[in-house]
């Protein structure tokens, strides 16, 4: 299918909007756009970070998901209490695949679920006493934890519990960091506010811990990797590249991260932001308070990796600049072999993406390195500044969809007929049943890492394995196939 023109794409949007009632149609129209690279600012063409309409199937999460699941959850040596009813914590337990090193249940707690398991009486009489008891029990059962965060679920805000008071009291009692996080699920329009609340909680309760303490020996090459959640080992694949070029990675936020690393971050020379959406707030704060500059980088696909390594190196002296070139040179044979192997199998294939807050634009480069084309992209919870950054990455007249509804996404796919879709688990089986190859781009479909040069090899293999899987030929029942087969000879 040839690329769609601007008019065709606009007509497609109109056609899809047709089924909505007038009011919903007007609202949804603002969230769907045809990309125009000549625009400087995204707010001219697309509206984002608005409340989803009642009655449509959104794919968004909540503030608790943004705080506990994304930002705080991967900090491995802290215990994150899902404060409230049991479900929120249990159903989100260990689903995000942020890998870490350590002995679970002894000195790391990443895949465990700690909850205050609210019952009716806790809603009626308040849950502060239960929380205090829970923290004491944690101290007895898991004495090697380095701190506790209290992740509020909806009822905590509704009944007005004073978790801050409990946190302060227990901090004094046990001498460990206890962080109350007001990330009740009903706050904001999506998980995005949860990221912001979590960033603010780190700022207010953790980051200042080592102000005025210079005992940590620093070097001129200290950096922090911020906004890499180590999904399937992503942060490790990124870290090796940075270390090879001569930088010292002091902290990982927050994949495979520890609270000690977070406390040391104000000592670094440069903050490297991978997921801009979820952690730009803390980077901006550190820039203001500690004068630490920050830059965004992108470790998907060799073109973007090389670009990013050079941009990072530009902030340092010549040894690092040489280091960056050395790293790019070293992996050159490796990634060229990957491209040589997979590009012929994937060339010209068309991809539609719908992910969270960074991948809809970050992975475009990786697909392009394999000769594939991204024909539609959208975010669950991006803000304007994310779309500002996306416009330049996407081709002209491609489709942009913000907070797409289940119906719209299906209709777009039916019309555009992409060769591959990258989205999440809720979308996966719908599209697979429609006969379209699908990769989960949140959790890498239980594969990974995809960051770095090593990750690119895995990324290319996975895309090939999905796209060129022989099963797609057999998706249609044999008697429904249109190709006229040989007439069956009657048995003699």
């Amino acid at each position, binding site marked *: 299918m040839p690329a769609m023109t601007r008019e065709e794409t606009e007509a497609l949007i109109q056609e899809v909007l047709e089924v909505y009632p007038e009011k919903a149609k007007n609202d949804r129209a603002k969230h769907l756009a045809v990309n125009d690279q000549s625009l400087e600012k995204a707010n001219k063409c697309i509206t984002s970070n608005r409340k989803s309409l009642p009655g449509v199937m959104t794919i968004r999460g909540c503030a608790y998901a943004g705080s506990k699941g994304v930002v705080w959850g991967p900090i491995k040596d802290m215990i994150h209490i899902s404060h409230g009813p049991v479900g929120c914590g249990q159903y989100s337990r260990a689903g995000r695949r942020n890998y870490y090193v350590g002995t679970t249940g002894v000195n790391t707690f990443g895949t465990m679920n700690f909850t205050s398991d609210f019952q009716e009486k806790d809603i009626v009489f308040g849950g502060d006493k239960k929380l205090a008891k829970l923290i004491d029990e944690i101290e007895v059962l898991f004495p090697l934890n380095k701190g506790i965060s209290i992740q509020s679920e909806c009822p905590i805000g509704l009944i007005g519990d004073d978790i801050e008071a409990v946190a302060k009291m227990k901090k004094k009692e046990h001498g460990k960091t206890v962080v109350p996080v007001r990330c009740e699920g009903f706050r904001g329009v999506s998980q995005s506010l949860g990221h*912001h609340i979590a960033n603010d909680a780190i700022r207010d309760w953790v980051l200042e811990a080592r102000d005025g303490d210079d005992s940590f020996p620093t070097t001129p090459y200290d950096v922090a990797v911020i906004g890499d959640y180590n999904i399937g080992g992503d942060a490790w694949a990124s870290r090796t590249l940075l270390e090879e070029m001569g930088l010292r990675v002091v902290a990982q936020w927050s994949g495979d991260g520890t609270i000690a690393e977070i406390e040391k971050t104000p000592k670094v020379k440069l903050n490297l932001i991978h997921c801009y959406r979820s952690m730009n707030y803390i980077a*901006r704060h550190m*820039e*203001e308070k500690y*004068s630490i500059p920050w830059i965004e980088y992108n470790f998907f696909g060799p073109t973007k990796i090389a670009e990013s390594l050079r941009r990072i190196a530009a902030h340092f002296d010549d040894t690092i600049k040489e280091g960056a070139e050395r790293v790019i040179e070293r992996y050159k044979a490796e990634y060229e072999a990957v491209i040589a192997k997979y590009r012929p199998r994937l060339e010209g294939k068309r991809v539609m993406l719908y992910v969270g807050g960074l991948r809809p634009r970050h992975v475009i480069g990786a697909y392009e390195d394999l000769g594939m084309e991204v024909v539609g992209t959208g975010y669950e919870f991006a803000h304007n*500044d994310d779309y*500002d950054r996306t416009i330049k990455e996407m081709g002209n007249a491609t489709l942009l969809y913000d907070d797409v509804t289940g119906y719209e996404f299906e209709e777009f796919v039916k019309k555009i007929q992409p060769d591959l879709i990258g989205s999440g688990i809720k979308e996966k089986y719908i599209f697979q049943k429609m006969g379209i190859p699908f990769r989960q781009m949140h959790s890498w479909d239980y594969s990974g890492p995809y960051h770095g040069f090593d990750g690119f090899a895995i990324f290319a293999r996975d895309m090939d394995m999905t796209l060129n899987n022989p099963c797609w030929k057999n998706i249609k029942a044999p008697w429904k196939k249109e190709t006229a087969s040989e007439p069956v000879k009657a048995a003699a």
Partner: protein
Amino acid sequence: MPSVMLRKRDDGKLLFYVAKKDLEETIESLEFDAPEKWGGEVVLGDGSRYYFEPLSPAPKIPTTLQAKRL
């Protein structure tokens, strides 16, 4: 009175960022921009106008200041 975070972009332009409003724009003009007096009316890239109480001496950027919407 939004709380505005100001930072310098790589090309030297000032960025005007309001987290709550999801607004990130460049500052196109600034009424007083001297070391001894800084602030006044600012015009952003999208044409909206804000007002900073003039400061003396000029603040160290990046910083967070209160601005009035005009």
